């Protein structure tokens, strides 16, 4: 177990699978139902989806899950008709949850979640036409969330978790300065940062037929206090591009979720979530270099993200005691306004289609699997870079988790 965890940590690089750089892949059960389920408490992934429901779980649990994410973006430039593709590595969002109560009847549950709610790795093909905007960005964050959940009565639970977030950013692009052989200079920015936040929720089930959930995941400001900028430039210009330290920050926006679950028959559950993400926190991407020169000035690039909604809807049907099948969809609005689309997050309004299965191996072990597919396309001309063309994105995310309950 420990070995598996450390392995996961090392390869935790995330991908372009949801709005902005948000990754909505934190639980296989919910992923099968359009990532809805804040009002449907089935397993310890409620740590993420709704800490208020955690205490309603009848068993102690450990879940380990991962969702390899395969994505491809094709950019077609307006003026030249030339195309470029991403060659992004497989993203590996993961989630590990553990929850337990001191004794079965306790009104108090404790838990720890470790998951990756934001990130992306986008690697563009060599020498693409946007190389001076971006050649590669790797953004990853890992959230550690110790959580307490309290059952006020049979119908009502509340919970809250403290979030510590650790992140890494690696950003590379070419600089339009050429060596004698015609090759281009480049810049690589590398940094780590951390931030704090919380995740709180309320779960309310007035009757068997119906339950509700509300959760709020706070904004986390990832501060890169000491990044390293490395410039590879012609010798004659090296004093104009001093490699050295930089600072930056990246806001991970708050998300508020309202959710319901309907349970019309023994075998059927229908869930719906509405998310509202406060993306407007991400208005500027700024880099402040420790040493400035006439060629290396601090940069401020407008991002101007907008607050957005996502609508999630899905259902689960139990075929028998051991098997469940799930279907769902998401309609997510993009936080990226026209004129601000970048090759780092070639985002668009999108429809995700999802499916999943759950299988109870025995009294202690469950397997859950899901798959998410989405395809979207957006044309834009970036106001800052004038990069103009159509981005066509395809994402497939199959995922698997193992739950141990005791």
């Amino acid at each position: 177990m420990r070995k598996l965890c450390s392995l996961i940590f090392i390869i935790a690089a995330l991908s372009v699978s949801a709005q902005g750089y948000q990754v909505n892949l934190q639980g296989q059960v919910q992923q099968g139902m359009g990532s809805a389920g804040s009002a449907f408490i089935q397993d310890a992934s409620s740590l993420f989806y709704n800490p208020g429901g955690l205490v309603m779980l009848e068993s102690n649990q450990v879940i380990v899950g991962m969702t390899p994410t395969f994505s491809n973006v094709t950019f077609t430039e307006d003026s030249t008709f030339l195309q470029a593709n991403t060659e992004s590595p497989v993203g590996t969002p993961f989630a590990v949850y553990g929850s337990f109560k001191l004794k079965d009847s306790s009104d108090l549950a404790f838990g720890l979640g470790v998951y990756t709610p934001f990130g992306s790795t986008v690697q563009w093909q060599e020498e693409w036409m946007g190389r001076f905007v971006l050649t590669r960005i790797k953004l990853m964050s890992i959230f550690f969330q110790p959580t307490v959940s309290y059952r006020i009565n049979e119908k009502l639970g509340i919970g809250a978790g403290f979030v510590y977030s650790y992140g890494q950013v690696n950003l590379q692009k070419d600089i339009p300065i050429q060596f004698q052989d015609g090759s281009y200079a480049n810049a690589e920015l590398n940094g780590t940062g951390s931030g704090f936040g919380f995740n709180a929720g309320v779960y309310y089930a007035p009757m068997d037929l119906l339950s509700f959930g509300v959760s709020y995941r706070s904004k986390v400001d990832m501060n890169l206090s000491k990044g390293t900028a490395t410039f590879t430039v012609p010798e004659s210009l090296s004093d104009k591009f001093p490699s050295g330290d930089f600072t930056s920050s990246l806001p991970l926006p708050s998300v508020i979720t309202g959710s319901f679950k309907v349970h019309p028959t023994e075998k059927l559950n229908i869930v719906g979530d509405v998310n509202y993400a406060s993306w407007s926190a991400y208005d500027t991407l700024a880099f402040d270099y420790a040493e400035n020169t006439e060629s290396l000035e601090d940069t401020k690039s407008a991002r101007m993200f907008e607050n957005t909604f996502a609508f999630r809807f899905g259902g689960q049907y139990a075929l028998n005691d051991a098997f469940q099948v799930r279907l769902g969809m998401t309609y997510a609005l993009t936080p990226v306004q026209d004129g601000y689309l970048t090759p780092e997050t070639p985002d668009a309004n999108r429809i995700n289609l999802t499916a999943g299965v759950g299988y109870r191996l025995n009294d202690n072990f469950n397997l859950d699997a899901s798959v998410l597919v989405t395809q979207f396309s957006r044309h834009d001309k970036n106001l800052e870079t004038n990069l103009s063309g159509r981005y066509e994105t395809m994402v497939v995310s199959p995922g698997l988790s193992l739950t141990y309950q005791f």
Partner: protein
Amino acid sequence: MPPVASGEVDPTVFVSVGGDRVAGYMDDALSVYGQSNSLGAIFNTQLEVVGGTTYNQPMIADQSIGINLKDQSQLIMGYKTDCNNETSLSPVRKANQGSIGSWSQNLYATQGPFNNIGIPGISVLNVLSPGYSDPWYDRFRSGGSSAILSDVTSQNPTFVLCDLGTDDIMNYALSGGTGSPIPSAVGIAGVGFNGTYETIVNSISSSGAKGVLCNIPDITEFPYFTTIPYNGLTLDSANAATMNQVFNPLGITFVEGDNPFTVEDQNEPFGVRKLVEGELIHLGIPLDSVKCYGMGSIVPIPDEYVLSLDEINEIHTKTDQFNTIIGNISNNYNFALADFNSVFNSVSLGLTINGVSFSGEFVSGGFFSLDGRNPTPKGMAILANECIRAVNKKYNAIIPYASITDYSGVLFP
């Protein structure tokens, strides 16, 4: 991929005619590098997508060093030590001598005919003249009495790119207004710009060819004229006092700090005055003379290195008149009009393409080559794209633009 289309363009035989830009003159020389990135060469590369074919150019003999009329090689970025023994990054000649083998023989018999009739520095008035001779044209002319225009029309071109006029104005400016005047706007063929230009377009058009006409930028915005400030004479109090001792009797005073340079002027009683704001100094001025031997201070700058306000006014007036003429002729003959004037203007203001900023700054601006007046390959591709924009619009064609990213700017050691 979007569909491409030639529209009303017949790309079968493409010929370009013009001066520096058409020849591919850049970094103050004609070189294989520049020729490979000439205006017509880049345009033709895109024309090939809709059925264009080969583009034959009279290539320079030596692959690597280039040649100009002073037998110099092309400029590259290197290190130069000045008269103060200070070494700095600067444009330097690539070799002690240029590719002088390029002058030795006419290429027409073995390699002609040529799709690219580009003659660096050509005056529009000389395009019609049978037997016109200069070292550039003599390299590839079809015969001893051929005219530049007949070398274009004799190929029965189906599409022609014509970029004439800038060189007439540039030649005047490069002489500091001391050389041949800019041709008059109005006059018959061989005398005035309008008559000559119309004859050229009429000859091309009469065989059914279509084409694109490029208009003329405001060359006073080029780094060749904007890099050295008119008031770059910085004096300490002792030097200012010395200068005042010499010049106060002539009615000229200097102050500690920034002062305008001194310039020769025959209209002044003593043949010398200070530059005034708005006047332009050539980048070609001998800088060592300025730094160490008193040029611009004790020794007034020779007139040939300076554009006075009157001369600048003449350049602006003629540029406007010629552009009006080119615009009218493009309308009358149903030719596309590439608005180079506005492209260069937007470069001066700052232009961003795919995250790359271009400006009119010398060296760092990325648009102008090391001679400060002709574009880099990137700059040339931006101009070729203006031609494509105009052609697509005029002839309902869908010719893809050149990818600026694929062309080089200034190279650094």
